[in-house]
C-alpha cells in the first residue's frame, strides 16, 4: 500500500470539501482497501465517512425502508425492521461476502462502487429504491450506468437508500465458488400488479428482465418464468461461467426466487 493522507470529517460538507484531486471516500473499504493493498489504487487522500453522525441507521414506515449509507451489511441482515418489512433484503445482506466483509462493508459503499457482481444493486433496482445524496435524489432505474459507474457526480456522497416495501420478494444468488460474489443474482419483487426482476452478476451492470416482469405480472408463479430463455448476448463470460451458463442460470435463479417469494 502506498502512503496516503487519512481524514475523519465530522460532517458531510467537510467530507465533500476534502474530495479534491484523487481523494477517495472510505465507506467500509471492502473493495478500496484491497485494491490499495494490491497497489492497484493509490489515492492521495482517504476520507473516512465512518465518523459522520446519522449516516448509519434503519427506518421503516410500512411503505418504505430507509437504510443509511454507512449501515453495515450485518446490521441490515439482523435488523428487525428490515426482516419484518422486506425479509428478502435482510436475506440478501446476509449473503454478501463473508462475516468479516458484512461487519465492515456498507450499502452506500457497495452502491457507489457498483461492482457488476455486487448484491445490493439487484435489491435497489428490483425494489425501485431512491438513492439520496448530499446533492439530491436518484431513481434506481437511472442510477446504475455501467460497469463500476453510476449517476453520482463529482463530490456527490450517498446518504441513504429508501426501498419500497413489496407485497412479496426474494433474492436468489448463485455464488462464484471462490469469491462468493454473484455469478448470477436475481431479485424478484411483486408489488401487486407490477413486478420488478433485477439481475446482477450476469452482465456488465445490473439490469431488469422485462420479459420475466411481464410474465410474472400476469401470473406470479414459477412456471411463468421457467421457460423464458435469456439471451446470452452481452452477458459476462469468464473462466467461472460462460455467457451461455449465466443466461441459463438467470432463468433458474428467477424461477427459484419466485418459488421462494411464494413460500
Amino acid at each position: 500500500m502506498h502512503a496516503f493522507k487519512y481524514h475523519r470529517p465530522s460532517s458531510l460538507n467537510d467530507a465533500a470539501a476534502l474530495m479534491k484531486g484523487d481523494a477517495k471516500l472510505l465507506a467500509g473499504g471492502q473493495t478500496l482497501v484491497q485494491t490499495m493493498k494490491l497497489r492497484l489504487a493509490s489515492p492521495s487522500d482517504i476520507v473516512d465517512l465512518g465518523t459522520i453522525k446519522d449516516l448509519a441507521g434503519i427506518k421503516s414506515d410500512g411503505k418504505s425502508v430507509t437504510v443509511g449509507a454507512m449501515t453495515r451489511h450485518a446490521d441490515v441482515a439482523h435488523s428487525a425492521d428490515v426482516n419484518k418489512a422486506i425479509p428478502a433484503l435482510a436475506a440478501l445482506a446476509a449473503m454478501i461476502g463473508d462475516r468479516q466483509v458484512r461487519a465492515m462493508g456498507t450499502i452506500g459503499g457497495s452502491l457507489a462502487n457498483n461492482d457488476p457482481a455486487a448484491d445490493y444493486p439487484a435489491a435497489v433496482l428490483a425494489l425501485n429504491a431512491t438513492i439520496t445524496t448530499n446533492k439530491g435524489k436518484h431513481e434506481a432505474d437511472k442510477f446504475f450506468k455501467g460497469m463500476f459507474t453510476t449517476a453520482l457526480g463529482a463530490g456527490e456522497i450517498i446518504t441513504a437508500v429508501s426501498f419500497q416495501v413489496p407485497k412479496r420478494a426474494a433474492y436468489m444468488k448463485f455464488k462464484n465458488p471462490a469469491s462468493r460474489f454473484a455469478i448470477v443474482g436475481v431479485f424478484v419483487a411483486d408489488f401487486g400488479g407490477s413486478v420488478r426482476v433485477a439481475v446482477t452478476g450476469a452482465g456488465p451492470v445490473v439490469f431488469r428482465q422485462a420479459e420475466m416482469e411481464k410474465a410474472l405480472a400476469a401470473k406470479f408463479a414459477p412456471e411463468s418464468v421457467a421457460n423464458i430463455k435469456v439471451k446470452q448476448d452481452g452477458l459476462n463470460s469468464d473462466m467461472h461461467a460462460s455467457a451461455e451458463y449465466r443466461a441459463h442460470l438467470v432463468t433458474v435463479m428467477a424461477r427459484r426466487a419466485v418459488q421462494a417469494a411464494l413460500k
Partner: protein
Amino acid sequence: MNAPLIGARIERKEDYRFLTGAGQYTDDVELPRQSYAAFVRSPHAHAKIRKISLDKARQAPGFIAAYTGEDFAAAKLGGLPCGWLITDVNGQPMKEPPHPCLAQGKVRYVGDQVAIVVAETSEQARDAAERVNVDYEVLPAVVDGSKARAKGAPQLHDIAPDNTCYVWALGDKAVTDAAFAKAAHVTKLDFINNRLIPNALEPRVANGSYSRADDSYTLYVASQNPHVERLLMTAFVMGLPEHKVRVVAGDVGGGFGSKIYLYAEDVAVTWASKQVNRPVKWTSDRSEAFLSDAHGRDHHTVAELALDKDGKFLAMRVKTTANVGAYLSTFASCVPTILYATLLAGQYKTPVIHCEVTAVFTNTTPVDAYRGAGRPEATYVVERLVETAAREMKIDPAEIRRRNFITAFPYQTPVALMYDIGDYNATMDAAQKLADVSGFSKRKEQSIKNGKLRGLGYAAYIEACGIAPSAVAGSLGARAGLFEAGEVRVHPTGSVTVFTGSHSHGQGHETTFAQVVADRLGMPIENVDIVHGDTSKILFGMGTYGSRSIAVGGTAIVKALDKVIAKGKKIAAHLMEAAEADVEYDRGVYTVKGTDKKKMFGEVAFAAYVPHNYPHDKLEPGLNENAFYDPSNFTFPAGTYVCEVEVDPETGVVRIEKFTAVDDFGKIINPMIVEGQVHGGLTQGIGQALTEGCRYDDATGQLLTGSFMDYCIPRATDVPSYQVDTRETPCTHNPLGVKGCGEAGAIGAPAALMNAITDALGVTDMPMPATPQTVWRTLQNKKAA
C-alpha cells in the same frame, strides 16, 4: 507408572501457543538493524531481459541496496540445485537447465525473480522495487504441458530441446503389450490431473543475517527441513562451509510440501545480508505466494487397464506428460516418476505394469511435491480406471476390487515396491458398513424424486510413506540420504528434552513424539519437550514430508530412547547391586528379576548426573543419547474411501452428502491428531476434485487464478462432516509399527469424489475440478450426444 500414552487422545501441547498468539513464526523474528527486501518479478511468462536500470530505485526513500542476476553471477553464486537425478529411457541423465536465483538474460515465468531491493522498511522496499526499470523483449510462451513438445513450441532452455527434461519409463513394455493383446476388456481414460497452488496459511518468509564477528550466517526461514535447506544452500549455491551457516525454522504455519524446497529468495536475503551488513527480511505476500511457491500435480495422462472376462486385472499401461514448470525445483524430478509410477499397482495383483513419463518445461511456476506428491496422481489413475472398468463390465465396483486385492504379504509389486503388510478387505468392509452402502439405492431414489442426481464412488488407495531407505533412494537417483536423527537428553531431575530432525509445521509432533517418549519412560507428558527446526540445536535432520515423521523421525527417537534405557539399566544394576542381566525395565521402572528391588527412571537419571555412587570404571556419567535411523523399507498406509454426492442438474452444483474414510495407518499414537490429519487431507483432496484449479492464459502465460477471488480453496461449508475410522495392521519393520497419516486424505479423496460424480452424472469421465459450470457443461454435452 502412568497410564499408557500411546493411543491416547491427548490435546496438543502446542495449541495453547498457537491459539493465544504466542507462536514465533519467521516473520515474528525482528533482528537489531533489521532491513527489508522486496523482489522485482517478471510480469511476462517468457522474455529476454535487454536492460535493467536501478537508477530510479536508488533515489527512492529508504533505499539501501539492489542486486540483479549480474551481481549474483559476478559473486559466483550457483543456481538452485535439483536433489534427484532421473536417468532417461536411453540411459542419459535428465536435462538440468541452470536455475539462477535472479534471472540472467531471460525470464521464464510470470513471477520469476529479476532483482532484490533492500530498504529500511518493507513498504519502502516495495516502493523502490516498483522503480526498477526492466526492458523486456517479450517472447512467445507455452504453458500447457501437452503442447510443450509440439513443433514450433517456444523453447525455454537451450540445453533441453523440445522442452523435454526426460522421458522415463518403469516396467516391461513388451510383456505389458502382450497382456493387453489377450485381454477380454480394456478400459481407457484420458485425463488431466489439475495443477494446484498450495496456499499454506503462513506465506514464505526468509530473514538472513550475517555476523562479521565470526564470518557466519543465520537464516530464519519458513522451512520444512532446515538441515536440507542449509546443505543445499551452502554446498551447491553459496560455496560456504556448513558450520558457518545456521538455519532456523521455528513455528511454521503449514507447508504441504511447498516449504521443502530451497528457494531463490532464501539465498538472496542470506547473500545480501553480508553485502549490506544488516539482517535482510523478505515476507511473501499472498499474491507472490500464488506466483512463486512451487505448484503441485499438472499431469496429462492416458491410462489403460486390461482385464479378463471375470474382471481380473491383467495389465496396466500408463503414459503421462508431467509439466514441471519453468525450472526444476528441488525434488521436481522424482515426483512424477519415483513417487508416481511405483504406486500404480495400488492394492491390486495387477501382474504387469508399464508407465512412461515425459517431463516437460513450460513457462509456468515450477511444480514440485504437494501433499501426496505423485501418489494422488497414481491413485487417481488406478482408482478411476478400476471404477470405470467395473461399470463397463457391469461388476459391482467394490466386488471388482475385492477380486483383485493383494491378500498375501509381503508382496512384491511389478513396479519395484515390496508391500510389507495390509488388509484391504478389512478397510473395504469397514468403509462399506460405515458409509451404509447398502442403503444407497434408497437414498438415490429419494434424490431422483427431488429432481437431483445421486452417485457413489470408491477409492481404495495405497501410498508409500516413511521415505526412505537411503540405499534404495540413492539407487533411484536421490542425491541425499533419507534417514532421520533424534537425540534424547535426560536432565538430572529426570525431565527430558528430545531433539528431532523431523519438523512440525502443523502436524503436532510436540505432542505425538512426547507421547512416545513419556510412555516409554513412564513419565507425565509435561516432563517431555520436543525441539525441532534449528540446525544449531539438532544434530541433523532430513525434515518432514512424505508422511515420514513418525515412521522415520519417531523411530530415530525410539532408537535413542533404547540407548538411554540400556545405559540406565547399567546404572540401575549398579545401584541395586544386581547383575545387569537380571535387571528388567518397563515404562519407567527398573526391577531385579525375582526380587522386590526397584529403581525409578528419575532416580537413575539423578545418579547419572550426580554420580556419587556410580560405576565409573564401566560408564561415563550423564544420560544423553542420539541415534540415526535409516528405514529398511517404505511404509504402506492404505484404506478405502467412499464418497456419496448429490448433484443439482439445473445448476451443476455438487454437494457431498457423505464422505467415509477408513484408513490403515498401522499403530496410532494419538487418534485425535490422526483424525485431524485425515480431515485436513480429505479437505485438500476434495479441493482438488471440486474447487481448485490453477489456470494460465494460453496466449500470454499470465496466471489467471492469482488470488482467492479466482482460486477456490474449500471452505468449511464446502465439505461434509467426515465419517472416519481406522483398521490396524502394524508396520513390520519399525519398532512403533507406524506407517504415517499426513497425506492419505489428499491421496484418496479426488478419485472417490470423481467416481461419485461420474456415477451421479452417468458419464465415463469429466475434468477436475468439478465446478458447477463444468458439471453443467458435462450434462449438456451428454444430453446433446
